[in-house]
């Protein structure tokens, strides 16, 4: 569904992606792991059209999407939940959710999806009128995912959704991810929680200093000595 080939991107003189090849198959959960500064977020931003490529190609179902403006990429069904949640803190929870559906014009569909995400995240239901900035970290993450779902994604990019959350919240987030997949959404998941991420994924990539250093099935990556040492040490 999504394919990155030879993707390079830089911030001024710093080359954050040095020729990344990566493929996400339709219906799959693909996880992208790597240490801090490896370039994971940059890769997602490149897919979303917010970090221009210096070379390489990104295709969605065979069609190039690099160079398109971010809104055109969202319109093609590629929606990102960025690192740090970035909810609109000075808007209500409801307004945040409606912003997720910004490009949609089907009022009935939006209303149905609002009901659907509130079923998926019941704790948001009582807080619809509340200012989103007053939500807890976990609730904000829920809202960020719910907002993305309001855009009816075909491919959802999740950047460290479990970061900084209590264990029970982390479990809830991974349950939600599994549930989203059953609805036919393809997922590209960037995670620090490598163990959980690999256990839910169908395919895994390890990124180090801007390049893919490992690509394998999750079960083999979980057995890989380098992966164990670097990312699973404290689990």
């Amino acid at each position, binding site marked *: 569904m999504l394919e990155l080939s030879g993707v390079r991107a830089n911030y001024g003189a710093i080359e954050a992606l040095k020729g990344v090849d990566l493929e996400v198959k339709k219906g799959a959960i693909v996880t992208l792991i790597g240490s801090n500064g490896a370039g994971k977020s940059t890769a997602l931003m490149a897919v979303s059209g917010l970090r221009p490529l210096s070379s390489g190609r990104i295709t969605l179902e065979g069609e190039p999407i690099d160079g398109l403006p971010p809104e055109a990429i969202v319109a093609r069904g590629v929606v990102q939940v960025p690192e740090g949640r*970035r909810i*609109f803190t000075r808007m209500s929870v409801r307004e945040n959710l409606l912003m997720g559906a*910004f490009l949609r014009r089907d009022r009935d569909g939006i209303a149905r999806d609002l009901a659907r995400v509130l079923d998926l995240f019941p704790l948001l239901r009582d807080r619809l009128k509340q200012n989103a900035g007053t939500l807890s970290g976990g609730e904000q993450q829920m809202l960020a995912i719910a907002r993305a779902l309001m855009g009816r994604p075909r491919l959802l990019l999740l950047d460290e959704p479990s970061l900084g959350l209590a264990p029970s919240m982390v479990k809830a987030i991974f349950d939600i991810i599994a549930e989203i997949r059953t609805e036919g959404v393809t997922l590209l998941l960037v995670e620090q929680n490598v163990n959980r991420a690999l256990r839910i994924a169908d395919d895994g990539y390890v990124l180090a200093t801007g390049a893919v250093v490992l690509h394998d099935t999750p079960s083999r990556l979980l057995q890989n000595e380098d992966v164990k040492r670097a990312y699973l040490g404290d689990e």
Partner: protein
Amino acid sequence: MIPGGQFFQQIVNGLTVGAVYALIALGYTMVYGIIELINFAHGEIYMIGAYVGTIAAALLLGAGLPATAAIPLAIVAAAAITGLYGLSAERIAYRPLRKAGRLAPLISALGLSIFLQQYVLLAQGARDKVFPEEITSSGFTLGPVRVAFVQVLILAVAALLMVALQAFVRRTRMGRAMRCAAQDPVMASLVGVPVDRVIALTFIIGSALAAVAGVLVVMYYGKVNYLAGYTAGLKAFTAAVLGGIGNIPGAMVGGLFLGVVESLAAGYIGGEYKDVVAFVMLVVVLIVRPQGLLGVRVPDKI
């Protein structure tokens, strides 16, 4: 001491001028809210609005339209045409510098401001442009206070536009997009907001509001010249800062507040102190309370 009647007269005059400051201040504050640029050319946009409105009114009256039709049409024409000036300003002077840090766009704004002044000087000359219809004199008295019809018009139009702007920003799809882009442009892009177009729209709206203010002022004072954007721009900027720059309701309140304070200073101390009072307030607020007089928390940008 001035007598009580004089006091209320100054309040009415102050609110009139303040409503104009508020309309101009909205453009500063909306643009700042979304791209953190102090658009120093905004005063000139207001001045251009005044010229366009005056020229349009002259043409329409010349074509035989009654003032009751010509003046509203002239206001609409000024808003539309000046909106296009604002749009072009954004495209030419600011968008290419969007990623160039903070200083470059500021310098570009100053350059644009000088350019627009000289442009109007060359096109229209240095002499005052006089509004074609004499309307200042008619009015009515409320006890000791004399209210000109044009003052009522200014207050009514300003109130209408402010309510409409609030409704737009709060209730419409593009208004919400504007608030999102002001809060977090990256995230706004990630939900599909075309941020560049939202920025352009912000310039159009801000310029149109300034243009309406410009036409109202020419009607009030009877004339305008190519330098008029300078003081009005600084005053409106002061109003925006008073209300907390980036804050839409703040700009409205800041404008009215500044107008009234200035007018009272003119009445109690002397007309020549009016501008001094405004700029002392600007400096003091910038030093003591840069987040503005309104609100304790960081103001709601847009």
